[in-house]
């Protein structure tokens, strides 16, 4: 069965080439056939071209299907299509000029429309269009310890939903859960491709997998063999000397994508050399990390990072510009006062209303859970601020309201700075300028691109917004990276006064009805500085407070 000379039908060779599942033995066979039969080359190129075109048509029809529901959705998806193709500098360049704001929207719509038109012109929709969100994600990253991802700019966060594609782990350990319930523990260095919710390919490196009954049939391919799970736990090790499979529990089915099958039972193992020669031996856990070992290592790592954050946080609290710091460290279920840890501030403790206690970004840490329209934290921030920085760790559960408050001062008086997440996942810093005596009497919105896609809900995300009156810019950050930066449209001293974190009070009680703007999710850390923090300071704040060891750049704006 592992004989490299075992003839594989040409159609299968072509199909495996197109789907990226060609083994080395099959590559050798296909090469031989191409050399022996020159007309096969032309046929193969035809297959390749037709396959590419079919993929493009299916992609454009999917886009068309998901975006032809209503105008807003259509526009945002088209816009996203263009954003995917634009690099960050270009995106910022587009956004920077307020004078071009209107032209921007029109041009992007035109461009996106053109791109969309060109890539999907005579599309006929044959299915009924349903207005619902869709996702291509098939696995979730559930745990990682000292994970270093190999791709440039590649990094992943715990809780992240991942679409089919490559995971290249340079070092450390990461655990992913397939949507069929299979759990795979990757030990760096490893090159692993998620193919679907039931299938993966390991090009090199080591992994162990546990598959519950729901994952029966879960398949891991390697260059030499395919392992089909039959309710089991097994380890796979792929190197230049071949692929090895060790069965720790249950039974797996091995096959070479042809017809001959072979079963490997608990305690059995086989390694297959690149030339297809198998060697059988006894399975051993040695060299493979178990899920429980990972859990232990993960907990240890979390404790270490939490302790490290506490040291950094203590130092941060002495920063003279720190006005408010809620670290949520000493919360108890019966506490209604939230301690402001900033050492040099006139702002006192805050009052918690309608919130409950939840677990924070580390297992042993608390966070504040906002679960309803009444959830809020009340504080009073006197004075005026020329510049300011807001930063927070949030885990958004849902975006139920048009405006979902992060921090909003009561009402919308002159100089009020409202930081909020819009219904569509955009993060907005809004500044009010109601003074009609100025030439630019209007409210200004500084919006990020879409940050909170459905896949990002339920994940801990670090947000920061900087209003810099000296540089005359507003900059927003996600996980330590700039996602938008715009010149100030007008300068005004910022005033907060009575303020709510995670909710809003319109500021007058003359009518009984009030808009609902509550945040829905958890907040684990909140800082308010009276100065603009630099890019490096924001990045350091994120890295020091991150639940994971993230040192790789991670542009978090929407991408496919």
């Amino acid at each position: 069965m592992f004989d490299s000379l075992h003839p594989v039908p040409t159609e299968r060779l072509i199909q495996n080439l197109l789907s990226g599942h060609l083994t080395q033995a099959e590559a050798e066979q296909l090469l031989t056939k191409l050399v022996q039969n020159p007309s096969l080359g032309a046929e193969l190129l035809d297959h390749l071209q037709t396959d590419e075109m079919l993929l493009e048509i299916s992609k454009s029809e999917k886009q068309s299907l998901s975006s032809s529901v209503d105008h807003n959705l259509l526009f945002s998806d088209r816009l996203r299509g263009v954003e995917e193709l634009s690099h960050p500098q270009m995106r910022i360049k587009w956004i920077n000029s307020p004078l071009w704001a209107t032209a921007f929207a029109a041009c992007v719509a035109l461009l996106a429309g053109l791109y969309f038109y060109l890539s999907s012109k005579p599309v006929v929709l044959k299915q009924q269009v349903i207005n619902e969100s869709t996702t291509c994600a098939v696995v979730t990253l559930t745990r990682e310890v000292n994970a270093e991802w190999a791709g440039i700019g590649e990094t992943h966060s715990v809780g992240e939903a991942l679409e089919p594609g490559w995971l290249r782990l340079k070092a450390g350990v990461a655990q992913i859960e397939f949507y069929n319930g299979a759990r795979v523990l990757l030990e760096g260095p490893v090159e692993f491709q998620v193919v679907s919710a039931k299938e993966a390919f390991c090009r090199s490196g080591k992994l162990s997998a546990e598959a519950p009954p729901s994952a029966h049939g879960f398949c891991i391919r390697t260059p030499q063999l395919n392992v089909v799970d039959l309710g089991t736990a097994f380890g796979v090790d792929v190197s230049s000397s071949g692929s090895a499979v060790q069965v720790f529990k249950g039974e797996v089915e091995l096959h070479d994508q042809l017809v001959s099958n072979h079963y490997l039972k608990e305690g059995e193992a086989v390694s297959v050399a690149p030339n297809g020669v198998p060697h059988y031996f006894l399975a051993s856990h040695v060299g493979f990390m178990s899920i429980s070992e990972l859990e232990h290592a993960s907990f240890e790592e979390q404790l270490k990072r939490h302790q490290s954050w506490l040291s950094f946080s203590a130092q941060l609290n002495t920063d003279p510009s720190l006005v408010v710091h809620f670290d949520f460290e000493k919360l108890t279920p019966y506490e209604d006062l939230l301690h402001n840890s900033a050492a040099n501030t006139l702002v006192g403790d805050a009052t918690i209303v309608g919130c409950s206690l939840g677990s924070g970004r580390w297992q042993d840490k608390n966070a504040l859970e906002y679960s309803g329209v009444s959830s809020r934290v009340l504080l009073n921030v006197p004075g005026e601020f020329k510049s300011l920085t807001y930063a927070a760790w949030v885990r958004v559960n849902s975006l139920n309201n048009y405006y979902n408050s992060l921090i909003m001062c009561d009402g919308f008086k002159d100089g009020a700075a409202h930081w909020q997440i819009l219904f569509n996942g955009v993060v907005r810093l809004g500044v009010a300028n109601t003074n009609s005596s100025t030439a630019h009497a209007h409210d200004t919105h500084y919006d990020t691109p879409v940050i909170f896609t459905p896949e990002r809900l339920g994940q801990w995300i670090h947000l920061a917004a900087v209003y810099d009156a000296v540089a005359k810019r507003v900059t927003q950050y996600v996980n330590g990276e700039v996602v938008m930066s715009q010149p100030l449209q007008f300068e005004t001293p910022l005033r907060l006064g009575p303020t709510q974190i995670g909710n809003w009070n319109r500021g007058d009680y003359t009518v009984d009805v009030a808009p609902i703007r509550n945040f829905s999710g958890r907040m684990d850390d909140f800082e308010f500085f009276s100065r603009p923090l630099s890019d490096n300071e924001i990045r350091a704040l994120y890295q020091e407070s991150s639940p994971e060891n993230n040192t790789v750049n991670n542009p978090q704006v929407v991408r496919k």
Partner: protein
Amino acid sequence: MNNRDSLAAQLFLANHGFVKALALKYAPWPGLSEDIVQQVFLEFIAKEEKWDLDSDVKPLLAKMTRFVALRYWRERTHQLPEVVQQLAEHIRRLAEERHKEFRYDDELDALRRCLDKLPIKSRAFVDLYYYSGVSTVEIASQMKMKSDTVCRALCRLRERLRSCIDTATS
């Protein structure tokens, strides 16, 4: 966004098929051409101030595509096992030596029309494999047939579509 950004992007989009066809010629390996097209787009837009957008941009795009494709080809195939690299190189030579013109946009239009003419069963294979991303193994399981049969069916399907495209564009 300024007018040149807009013009450059429009010009690129108008030549998207041209770039895609070249990408497939210079780097004929599954999944590579789309990355090349996107990279050419980014580089074309990033340096748009340098280009004379009033003249025909095809020669410029051809040069850029060739350059990017060769770079990507080197980077990606370098990671493959030796025997797969040999196969890839052989296919690249075949594509380079091929004289048949690949008019991507025209053929894409023709393919759409050809898809509409497919019998229901053939269309089911297209829907499952290309639209729903179901693997050949899973299709075999769903349709209670051998996975080799599914591979053969998909190959026959593409051959049939190719023949239809050639007829429509000849």
